[in-house]
């Protein structure tokens, strides 16, 4: 493997929380040297002048839905890998809500093989916590850990029975497994398509109170306290849930929380006239909630921002709003959407990469997420200011269900490196 020198870049170090002008040298797939300033020592390999653009650790995205097995027409490992590379995502942690669910070591081995064959970015699978994600019997957590599961989650299926969940938490904890929960009270949120309130009432859509999230979180926190488990709440999207989260962290529970990029950049009014591409789970929230959650990311109360990439084909979206499928693709729009928060002055770049690279890598014990000597050379080089209008048909994902179609965005990925290899370069670079 030849050496590579990247110079004249704005280096984002999420560990040190710094942004400095400098460069780095890649050797054998790892970062061999990080140096400040413009002066680079002579090198044998190739040199890339980054032209003052931003060089940061590649995004580590927890909770990507890939349609294999079962829904390959929506997203394959190949298309997801291309989309990830184009979006600066160097590690995808895939969800277990496939068909069938990843709930046996055999299915897990299948997805790992498929991923290795066709995907150039790193793929780590989650496994289901319960068989078939039905909330009844626990999966073979030990075997699944041995086979390479990095976390256990039933996706958006909430385990209704607290006794079963508490046993799963206890068992997983004994083996050191991380459990990821979807915090929604299943009764209160049943049948809901949007968040209840004025907008839901005006459009005549069934809504769920934001309180359902707090109830779901409080229940899971009580069980985490009971079992001492390692726990991550996948999406905290409401102001009402934040005090409970802060309390649990203060009490020393082993808990982290995430939020999807859509809940940070969109609100319930974006649904407008029944636009199903804006139907996500949990539903988009009020502007007050959005701002509170953005602030929680900036302060570090919410640890992780993810894309919650959920490909859906046209058929499952071209339906009346209540009947339409939930979810939005986001691998390629993740970074430009997040840059909206940076351009609005609500987050800085080191803070952003702490939430989208460093923290998820740390929480799931994965390599990557750092910009330091010895770290894997998983990197994204992007122009933070480049403006463009998003065309959904230009996305690499097989599914085009993005809420940002036609949106004006700022921030373009120019190059993506995984293990020192360039896996994406924008056409004109």
């Amino acid at each position, binding site marked *: 493997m030849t050496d590579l020198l990247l110079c004249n870049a704005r280096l984002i170090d999420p560990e040190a929380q710094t942004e400095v002008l400098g460069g780095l040298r890649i050797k054998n797939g790892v970062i061999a040297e990080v140096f400040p300033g413009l002066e680079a020592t002579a090198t044998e390999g190739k040199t890339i002048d980054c032209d003052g653009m931003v060089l940061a650790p590649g995004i580590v995205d927890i909770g990507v839905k890939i349609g294999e097995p079962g829904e390959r027409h929506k997203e394959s490992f190949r298309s997801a890998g291309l989309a990830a590379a184009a979006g600066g995502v160097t590690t995808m942690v895939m969800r277990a809500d496939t068909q069938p669910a990843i709930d046996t070591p055999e299915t897990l081995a299948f997805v790992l093989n498929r991923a290795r064959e066709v995907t150039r970015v790193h793929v780590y699978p989650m496994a289901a916590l319960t068989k078939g994600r039905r909330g009844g019997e626990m999966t073979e957590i030990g075997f699944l850990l041995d086979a390479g599961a990095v976390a256990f989650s039933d996706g958006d299926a909430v385990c209704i029975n607290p006794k079963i969940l508490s046993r799963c938490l206890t068992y997983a904890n004994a083996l050191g497994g991380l459990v990821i929960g979807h915090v929604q009270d299943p009764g209160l949120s049943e049948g809901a398509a949007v968040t209840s*309130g*004025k907008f839901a*009432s*005006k459009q005549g859509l069934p809504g769920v109170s934001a309180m359902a999230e707090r109830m779901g979180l409080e229940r899971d926190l009580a069980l985490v306290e009971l079992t001492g488990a390692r726990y991550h709440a996948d999406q905290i999207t409401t102001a009402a849930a934040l005090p409970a989260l802060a309390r649990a962290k203060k009490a020393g529970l082993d808990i982290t929380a995430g939020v999807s990029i859509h809940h940070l950049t969109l609100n319930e009014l974006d649904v407008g006239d029944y636009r199903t591409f804006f139907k996500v789970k949990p539903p988009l929230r009020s502007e007050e909630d959005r701002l509170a959650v953005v602030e929680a990311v900036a302060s570090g109360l919410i640890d992780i921002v993810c894309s919650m990439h959920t490909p859906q084909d046209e*058929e499952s979206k*071209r*339906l009346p*709003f209540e*009947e339409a499928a939930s979810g939005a693709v986001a691998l390629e729009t993740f970074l430009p959407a997040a840059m909206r928060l940076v351009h609005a002055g609500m987050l800085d770049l080191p803070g952003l990469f702490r939430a989208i690279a460093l923290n998820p890598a740390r929480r799931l014990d994965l390599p990557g997420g750092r910009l330091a000597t010895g770290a894997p050379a998983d990197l994204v080089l992007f122009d933070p200011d480049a403006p463009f209008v998003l065309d959904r048909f230009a996305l690499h994902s097989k599914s085009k269900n993005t809420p940002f179609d036609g949106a004006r965005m700022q921030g373009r990925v120019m190059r993506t490196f995984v293990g020192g290899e360039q896996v994406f370069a924008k056409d004109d670079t």
Partner: protein
Amino acid sequence: MVFAAKHLLGIEPLNKGDILSILDRADHYVTLNRQPNKHGDALAGMTQINMFFENSTRTQASFELAGKRLGADVMNMSMANSSIKKGETLIDTALTINAMQPDLLVVRHPSSGAVNLLAEKVNCAVLNAGDGRHEHPTQALLDALTIRRAKGRLHRLSIAICGDIAHSRVARSNIMLLGKMENRLRLIGPKTLMPSGIADFGVEVFDDMREGLAGVDVVMMLRLQRERMDGGFIPSEREFYHRFGLDLEKLSYAKDDAIVMHPGPMNRGVEIDGTLADDINRSVIQEQVEMGVAVRMAAMDLLVNSARSNPKGVMA
């Protein structure tokens, strides 16, 4: 007044002028409908298709009669038990019907927003005959016409809407329309049947009938949507009738000349006392049915004629 809309999907996109032009035209059709020869020719030669994905007798009959009186060829499709059950999507159904070159589509659907979705896919004018809990614009227009003819005006009235507001598209369309016309609105019903965030709609909310009805000009009762009661919103029908059913005693808190309205079909003894409903001195329920035909004639006439003079139309 030029009626610029291409479709009638709801009251929300209409302005005061649109509403008044429909009501004025409807007045004209009320006169026509009371003559022995009821034939107009505004829709002569045109094809009107009524697509009802939810069962309806009254609204469908009203639209059918309205179309026939204006000379249209009217076809009724009861979609509640048709190919949609065989797995065809709403959009495919819409495209199929569209290929038959209708001039007017009248659509009722159990999902909010479904009629908007369908309207995007067809070339002709679409009238919303009720979508989920969202809107039922012709009902609000016929209610407005009834009020205007009974009270002589459609502004600065105190109007109470009572009962199951949460599940009612009639209530939503009426709140929009009567609000746009600058009336004072009071919503009365148990808190479990009030939509969330309702206080932000510029209305007063009561859970006591006597308090809410005090001094109102119009009392609008809603049907208690028993088929939508999926989760025990009220303890029992008899308790509901006791607290929220309209009878003479509760009505006595309203103005002496207050009128009583109901969109039908009524549950006698649940939301309204049977004798009161039949009292022609107080109840205008039969007039509402009559106005319904005239309003639908007016709406279809205006939509088709705006489509002729303005072929590209303005989405509404």
